[in-house]
């Protein structure tokens, strides 16, 4: 982490008072005990208790808070629900956390134009829950959707199991309201499609809280298909499962989801969700198709026939809503279920799908070489791997080994033509690996863009870019 600014720590009381004057005392979190709730996100190996936490209730309050803090040269960490797996919301002792928790209203829903306007602290699932009675949904569905916020989704450009067909956050957000570092409120995009020219919205989505604080968003809502049905297929090898995925896609079918689990993951998820996953296979695919009843049957028939060429040892199509729910529960709670048996580091590399079997084998070898076990649960249709590297967090040596193994896995992803992160973001976790994917010139350009939005590097500054090679900062105004 960059050095802690002692002069900021010394001004703590004054800063807290300044914030209280803007949002009211009751919305500033001051005591160490309460601040500790914000010391980490879901990458819990990294912790730092922030200077203070402020919970504004309106965009105007966010603007006043940001202006106040930036004028005082105080670092600002925006926070949604704190479910980031890359340390994106990790604070530092000299930073103030600006939490969106109170800004969680759905402002309007417009079914005719298929859009919803929300405050950015709303949870992802809440949008779908609000529009579901009319048969609509908000498409990107991170497994963390019960907790994570649209603000966090926008910052990370989050994806989910159903993104194979419907795209990720950036494909489903039409507009945002954002507070820039000088406290200006700007509207980018709107409720129409595409930018007039420069796609500022596209640049801001995925910028990991480094460009401004997003306070509202307009998102697309889509009419759900009439029905959807998952099927399970078990295979004796990763090769067979991988080849089956490729054959399905090459045949012209894009299922709404193709999820992959390996043997260790199946065992843990089955014990948790009782979804009826086969326990005697090396690889399990959950494939979901949707449409009318006739269409679903047709697609399942086509997929079953393609898959038969790869000799699945089990094929089971869900027969009821309850069974479908159990199948998805197992997948969506996979990380949580794994967390009950072991600490883990969740990787997020992406590879060309044709390299699946080969890369999975090498991931196993890498982890074994550090004496660690690994479980794989991921989005197979798009090659987004999530190796869970199991370790004991109470043993600092194991943590270091898990981190090294993780770095090797991600380097492997880049080496085979993929990337470091498909949906969790760079955060603190992959910051120092950026040089493996990008040249100094690439990183230089990105950092100059950061400086345009945030000349003093006060917004979530410790993230994304290696600490070495950063540009000199503009003088505080």
């Amino acid at each position, binding site marked *: 982490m960059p050095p802690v600014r002692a002069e900021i720590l010394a001004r703590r009381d004054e800063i807290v008072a300044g914030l209280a004057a803007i949002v009211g005392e009751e919305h500033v979190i001051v005591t160490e005990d309460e601040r500790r709730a914000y010391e980490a996100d879901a990458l819990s190996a990294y912790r730092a208790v922030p200077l203070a936490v402020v919970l504004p209730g309106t965009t105007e309050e966010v603007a006043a808070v940001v202006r106040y803090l930036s004028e005082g040269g105080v670092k600002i960490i925006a926070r949604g629900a704190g479910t980031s797996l890359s340390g994106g919301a990790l604070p530092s002792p000299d930073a103030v956390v600006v939490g969106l928790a109170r800004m969680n209203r759905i402002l309007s829903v417009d079914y005719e134009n298929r859009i919803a306007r929300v405050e950015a602290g709303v949870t992802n699932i809440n949008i779908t829950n609000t529009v579901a009675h009319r048969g609509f949904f908000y498409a990107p569905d991170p497994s963390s959707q019960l907790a994570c916020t649209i603000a966090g989704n926008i910052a990370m450009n989050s994806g989910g199991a159903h993104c194979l067909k419907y795209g990720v956050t950036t494909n489903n957000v039409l507009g945002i309201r954002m507070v820039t570092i000088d406290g200006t409120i700007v509207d980018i995009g709107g409720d129409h499609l595409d930018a007039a020219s420069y796609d500022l919205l*596209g640049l801001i*989505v995925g910028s990991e809280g480094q460009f401004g604080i997003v306070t509202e968003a307009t998102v697309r809502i889509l009419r759900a298909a009439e029905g959807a049905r998952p099927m399970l297929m078990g295979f004796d090898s990763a090769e067979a499962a991988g080849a089956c995925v490729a*054959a399905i896609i090459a045949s012209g079918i894009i299922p709404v989801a193709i999820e992959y689990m390996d043997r260790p993951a199946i065992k843990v998820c089955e014990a948790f969700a009782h979804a009826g996953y086969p326990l005697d296979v090396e690889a399990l695919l959950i494939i979901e198709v949707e449409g009318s009843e006739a269409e679903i049957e047709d697609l399942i028939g086509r997929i079953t026939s393609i898959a038969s060429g790869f000799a699945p040892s089990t094929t089971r199509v869900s027969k009821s809503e309850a069974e479908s729910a159990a199948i998805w529960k197992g997948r969506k709670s996979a990380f949580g279920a794994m967390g009950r048996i072991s600490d883990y580091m969740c990787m997020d590399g992406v590879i060309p799908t044709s390299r699946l079997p080969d890369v999975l084998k090498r991931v196993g070898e890498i982890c074994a070489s550090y004496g660690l076990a690994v479980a794989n649960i991921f989005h197979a249709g798009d090659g987004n791997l999530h190796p869970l590297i199991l370790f004991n967090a109470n043993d600092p040596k194991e943590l270091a080994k898990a981190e090294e193994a993780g770095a090797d896995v991600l380097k492997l992803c880049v080496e085979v033509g993929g990337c470091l992160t498909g949906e969790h973001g760079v955060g603190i976790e992959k910051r120092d690996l950026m040089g493996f994917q990008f040249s100094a010139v690439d990183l230089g350009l990105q950092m100059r863009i950061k400086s345009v939005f945030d000349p003093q590097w006060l917004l979530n500054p410790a993230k994304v870019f290696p600490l070495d090679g950063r540009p000199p900062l503009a003088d505080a105004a």
Partner: protein
Amino acid sequence: MNVTLLPKDENEIAAAVANAAAQRLPLAIMGGGTRAGLGRPVAAKATLSTRALTGITLYEPAELVLSARAGTPLEEIETLLAAKSQRLAFEPMDHRPLLGEGGEPTIGGVVAANVSGPRRIQAGAARDSLIGIRAVTGEGEIVKSGGRVMKNVTGYDLVKFLAGSYGTLAVLTEVSFKLIPSPETETTLVLTGLDDVAAVAALSAALGSPFSVTGAAHRPAFGREPARSFIRLDGFATSVADRAKRLATDLTDYGKAEQLAGRASVSLWQTIRDVALLGTAPKVPIWRISTRPSLAPALVETVRRAFEARVLYDWGGGLVWIAGGEGRDAGAAIIRGALGGNGHATLIRASEEVRSAVEIFQPLAPPLLELTRKLKRIFDPAGILNPGRVYAGL
């Protein structure tokens, strides 16, 4: 004298741009030149064309991914994909019929102008299919963003930012896309005689149905031609037939839907994509407006009170094409006034004189213009890449 540089590889582009930057020599950046008339006129003595930078560098049908150098003709890509029953999801429009330019559209040009078509409403714009770029900045630096995999959030998304930047930030050298399978068949439901308000309501109902509509357009009545509204469905044959029947039933309030199947449907959507259905005379100004669909009919009515206009709605009403616009500003004040803050209006076609005088692209709010100006300076400090093509002084 206007010289044209035709570099053959990325390094040559980088050298040419670095050289121009050192001399502060503005460059017009061009692909096939089929969209040269789009945007503000660029004052440059030299043109850098990517036409010689060609070739498909990667095509993996089983992974639904393709990469090509920027100057690769779009047609070459579409032909290769068609042979494997795949396609670009965003159905890029061909501007030649409208703008009257010759030449061959290149894939780099498609990206630089974020060119999409009717399927945008369901499958996203060019920027949504684009997964990776390589480019040369205004300083002659070679940079990349994204890659050739389906998902990628590593670093800032310059892929999106460069799509639609009209060669003013960087010269694209290579682009990668995710693809979709071509549907087995398609069909179009046609409703006749609806006024604009009813038509947009019908299209909204179709797009809000569970039947996966991939095109929703409306051409109001003109001359002796009655108004027609078009709704496209595609996919496997049995499914398309079933959905078409059920959607037609759901839409009975809007009249009896006829069906255009197969090739007739395909050519219809080509005329919508390329705006030929607007049926305009050559010199009339053409506007392209993106807005909230339910606002579009009132916007059109306001415009029509001011001047005669032919109109085509696409994207369920969210995209409005207007042919018409009088005076020295080609109707800009009226159209943008009627639009208010609810979207953007781009002047796609007008005489060079009008294009020099009017804001072609929707003016940006002052803080966003300022931000854009600063970003332009980061990419192109010497201001040599297509200066002024999008906004004056930028």
